[in-house]
């Protein structure tokens, strides 16, 4: 027993600094710093906290949804329909409100529409055991179609009193940014410190093992889909408030940006790994990079190229880091 090759049990514990620093979120943070420096060099107009926050409000709704989506992905599922859900919920809201329903009631109707969409996804993905990627590609198209039936090819105005959530300031910070930060804190605590949070990781890592350990995987996943549905609806109505009108093509293609945020933050697409902090940082990273290039008047082609490179770098780095730390 003296001279055998070391087994995994015998491997030395990782030093604390290693545990704290060698993780995907560190990479995201580093990219943010590089982005800030690079954008400041590109344009003298960039480094202005109020401008960066104002720019963040343009994607704050999607970022909020991406936080919940991160939890869905960690649990081993995927949902590609939240952006379409945002559009349909907002259209339903604007439509009933336009038809004379009182504003608070219209908001509730919008939220219920989002809940119903989440329930539909949950029913097909969890109850019927269909792959969620296929199910939600289907519902993504279905929700957009319904939104177009409701709104047609025109925009529905929302009442003046509802317009301007992004102009509401809380201690100098736009309200959508505040909501995003609060959501990140709450969801981060749920995922990182509660029993349900640990169970979500376990389901995503190995669903069979989780079931044997007595975890009700179905119930947790259904809950996540429902939460995502409601949050998407709320985000859709926030977008309606910011834009002052609603169209069926609201945040068209937004689902890719949401998945991109999760991936850039180090969430593993097949589940089991990832953090809210990572997605939180990635949302800022995307805003900083794209805002920096936009204010420097760079062509969209260059912007897309840079974003593509960013994603590839992030995926390679994340895989490398996970391989090094063996989880």
């Amino acid at each position, binding site marked *: 027993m003296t001279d055998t090759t070391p087994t995994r049990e015998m491997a030395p514990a990782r030093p604390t600094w290693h545990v704290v620093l060698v993780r995907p979120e560190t990479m995201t943070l580093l990219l943010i710093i590089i982005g800030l420096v690079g954008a400041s060099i590109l344009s003298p107009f960039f480094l202005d906290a109020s401008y960066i926050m104002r720019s963040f409000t343009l994607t704050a709704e999607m970022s909020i949804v991406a936080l919940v989506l991160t939890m869905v992905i960690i649990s081993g599922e995927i949902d590609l329909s939240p952006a379409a859900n945002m559009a349909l919920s907002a259209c339903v809201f604007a439509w009933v409100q336009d038809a004379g329903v009182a504003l608070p009631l219209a908001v509730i109707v919008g939220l219920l529409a989002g809940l119903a969409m989440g329930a539909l996804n949950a029913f097909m993905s969890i109850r019927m055991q269909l792959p969620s990627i296929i199910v939600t590609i289907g519902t993504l198209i279905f929700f957009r179609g319904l939104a177009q039936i409701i709104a047609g090819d025109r925009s529905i*105005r929302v009442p003046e009193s509802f317009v301007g959530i992004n102009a509401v300031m809380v201690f100098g910070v736009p309200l959508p940014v505040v909501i995003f930060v609060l959501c990140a804190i709450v969801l981060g605590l749920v995922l990182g410190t509660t029993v349900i949070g640990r169970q979500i990781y376990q389901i995503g890592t190995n669903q069979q093992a989780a079931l044997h350990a007595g975890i009700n995987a179905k119930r947790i996943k259904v809950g996540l889909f429902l939460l995502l549905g409601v949050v998407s609806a709320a985000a859709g109505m926030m977008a309606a408030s910011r834009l*002052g*009108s609603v169209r069926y093509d609201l945040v068209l293609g937004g689902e890719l940006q949401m998945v991109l945020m999760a991936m850039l933050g180090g969430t593993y697409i097949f589940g089991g790994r990832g953090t809210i902090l990572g997605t939180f940082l990635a949302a800022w990273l995307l805003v900083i990079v794209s805002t920096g290039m936009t204010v420097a008047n760079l062509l969209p082609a260059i912007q897309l190229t840079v974003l593509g490179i960013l994603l590839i770098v992030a995926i390679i780095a994340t895989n490398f880091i996970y391989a090094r730390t063996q989880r």
Partner: protein
Amino acid sequence: MLKKLLITTTAALALTAGNAFAEDIDIVFVGKNTGNPYFDSLTQGFVDACEVIACNFEFVAPATAEATSQIPFLEAQIQRGVDVIAISPNSPDALNQVFDSAREKGIIVLTVNGDITGNEEHRDATILPTDFTKVGADQIEMVGSLIGYEGEVAILSATTEAPDQNFWIEGMNETIANDPKYANMTLVATVYGDDQPEKSTTEMEALLANFPDLKGVIAPTTVGIAAAAQVVQSRGIADQVKVTGLGLPSEMRDFVKDGTVDGFQLWSPYNEGWLASHFAVGLKNGSMTNEVGATFEVPNLGTITINEGNSINTQSALTTFNADNIDDFDF
């Protein structure tokens, strides 16, 4: 009152500061999307103008023409502190809030080549290619001149609901009915190709079959005129049926060169950029005022009047393209 005061102050400043002041005017044009030859031509108008009069010009545009894709670009221009934002809006209402915050910062917002109809109070002025009320009459004159003001004429339009086309067709009908100059011309049919090449081709062939004495076809849509010209070209009947309408020089060049089409019309997007930059600089240095009824001179375009709703047209009549000038246009 305040506006007047502001204008006089700016004018005074401009007088004292002279040219140095004018050189500081930054104009940015936010296009609908990138890679659109129509807007390349419009942008060139800005570029050329800013070489003559003192202004700095930049063009930006999102990758796609969605309703909200221009917002980050507008926010960026506000942050850059430009003086004038010219924009071809992708949405009639989703940009209102951003326009408002730009104007609060003292930025002049001009919509170009398209307006935010119904939300005009959120921009300073709009620059549109031509007076749409005259398009119908211009087109009748065009086809009349090609067929010797005599014979049967038909219209090949876009969709039955296309608002611009329907407005122009209304004008054509009125012109032909009321103007004695066109008394010997009759409008025999109006058909719709839905702006699809195949359907437009079928409708054009049906016109030729149903009206053997047809002398002229007006297609006030770029898809329709190209399809109609294609039919006439392949049948070799350019001498009997004259095709005209509204088309893009880039798409119609070959038909004009081989004699299939003698002439067609459109406006010049180039002039919109040219006028917008002159107007923007004029507003900023105080030599022009943005008041309904005011007039100002623009080189090559003559006297321009600000119409109701602070709307400005670059040209009073359509530009006619024919074999002599088609090579001068590349959009």
